C-alpha cells in the first residue's frame, strides 16, 4: 500500500470573515479535501494490521458513498456513521457549493476501480445542494431595504388596481404595507 498520506483523508479548512466599511459582514468556509485512495482492499493483498487499517480507512469512504446515495435518491442519511461525513455534513447536500474532482487510471488493470470511481461521481452529480450567501446587513441597511421593499409593494398594488379596477383592490392599495 501507499504511504500514510494516501491512506488518510486530509482536510484544509479556510474561514473567511469580512467586515465592510458600511458595517455589513460577510463570512464563509471553504473545505479543500484530499481523500484517501478509494481502491478495494482485496487487490492490495492486505492482511493483519494492514487489513484492519484498510477497513477503517474504507469506513469513511464507504459511509461517504452511502451518504451520497441517500442524498441523491432519498432515505435516511447516515452522516453520523463516520468521522469524515460528520465533519463535512454541511458540504454534503447542505449550504455549500460543492465540487467533486474524480481522478482515474487509464490502465486495464485498474478497470474495476475506475468503474467504481465513475459510479461514485455519477451519484454525486445527483445531489442538489442549497448554497446561500451569508451576508449580515447593519440595521441602517435593513431599514433602507424595508423602505425600498415597501415602495415596491405599493407600486405593485397600484398596478393591480389599475389592471383590475375593483374597489377591493383600491382599498388594498391604500392599506399599510
Amino acid at each position: 500500500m501507499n504511504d500514510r498520506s494516501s491512506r488518510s483523508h486530509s482536510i484544509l479548512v479556510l474561514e473567511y470573515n469580512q467586515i465592510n466599511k458600511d458595517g455589513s459582514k460577510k463570512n464563509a468556509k471553504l473545505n479543500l479535501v484530499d481523500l484517501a485512495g478509494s481502491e478495494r482492499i482485496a487487490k492490495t493483498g492486505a492482511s493483519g494490521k494492514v487489513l484492519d487499517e484498510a477497513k477503517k480507512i474504507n469506513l469513511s469512504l464507504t459511509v461517504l458513498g452511502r451518504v451520497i446515495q441517500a442524498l441523491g435518491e432519498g432515505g435516511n442519511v447516515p452522516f453520523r456513521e463516520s468521522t469524515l461525513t460528520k465533519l463535512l455534513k454541511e458540504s454534503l447536500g447542505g449550504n455549500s457549493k460543492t465540487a467533486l474532482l474524480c481522478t482515474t487510471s487509464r490502465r486495464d488493470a485498474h478497470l474495476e476501480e475506475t468503474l467504481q470511481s465513475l459510479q461514485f461521481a455519477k451519484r454525486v452529480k445527483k445531489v442538489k445542494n442549497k448554497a446561500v450567501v451569508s451576508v449580515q446587513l447593519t440595521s441602517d441597511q435593513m431599514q433602507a431595504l424595508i423602505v425600498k421593499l415597501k415602495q415596491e409593494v405599493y407600486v405593485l398594488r397600484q398596478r393591480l388596481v389599475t389592471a383590475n379596477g375593483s374597489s377591493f383592490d383600491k382599498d388594498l392599495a391604500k392599506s399599510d404595507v
Partner: protein
Amino acid sequence: MDTLKYTFDNILVEASQEKMYYYAGQETVKLFTSGFNGTIFAYGMSGTGKTYSMLGPETVVEVIKQGGEISEDIQSQYGIIPRAIRDIFEFMNYAIEKEGASIELMMNYFEIYKESLNDLLQPNKEQANNLKMMGSKVVNSYKVMIDSPETIFDHIKRG
C-alpha cells in the same frame, strides 16, 4: 463489447494544472470570497493524481516545504490549493485596499486516519489526536490566522 455511458460536467485528459483549476476550483473559490460556503473533493484510487491535482507534483510540494522564492515554472505546476490561495489573496487585497474592508482569514488543517480526527496544526502533540466533535464542529481545534499565502504554505509544510 459493452459500453457504459457516464455524463459529467467536464472530462479532462492530460490537462494542464491551470485548466484543472479553471474547471474544478475557480468557481467555488470565487463564490467563497462572495460569502458562499464551498467544498472541493478529490476522489479516486491511489496513484491517479488526487494530491497532484489538489497541491501539485512532488516538486511543488518540496519547494513549498523548503519555503522562500518560488519560480514561475514551479508556480505553473501549482495544484488547486495554491491557486485558490493566490486567488483568495488577490481578492482580499483588492477589498482591503480599494474598498476599505477588514478581512480575517483563518485556517484549520485536519487528517482523518483510521477514523481518528487529528489536528495537523496543533503544536502540542498530546492534544493533536482524536479530536472530539459537537455535531460537525470540532472541539478545541488549533486555528491559525493567515496573513499571506506563505503562511498557509508554512502550515501545510508543518502539517
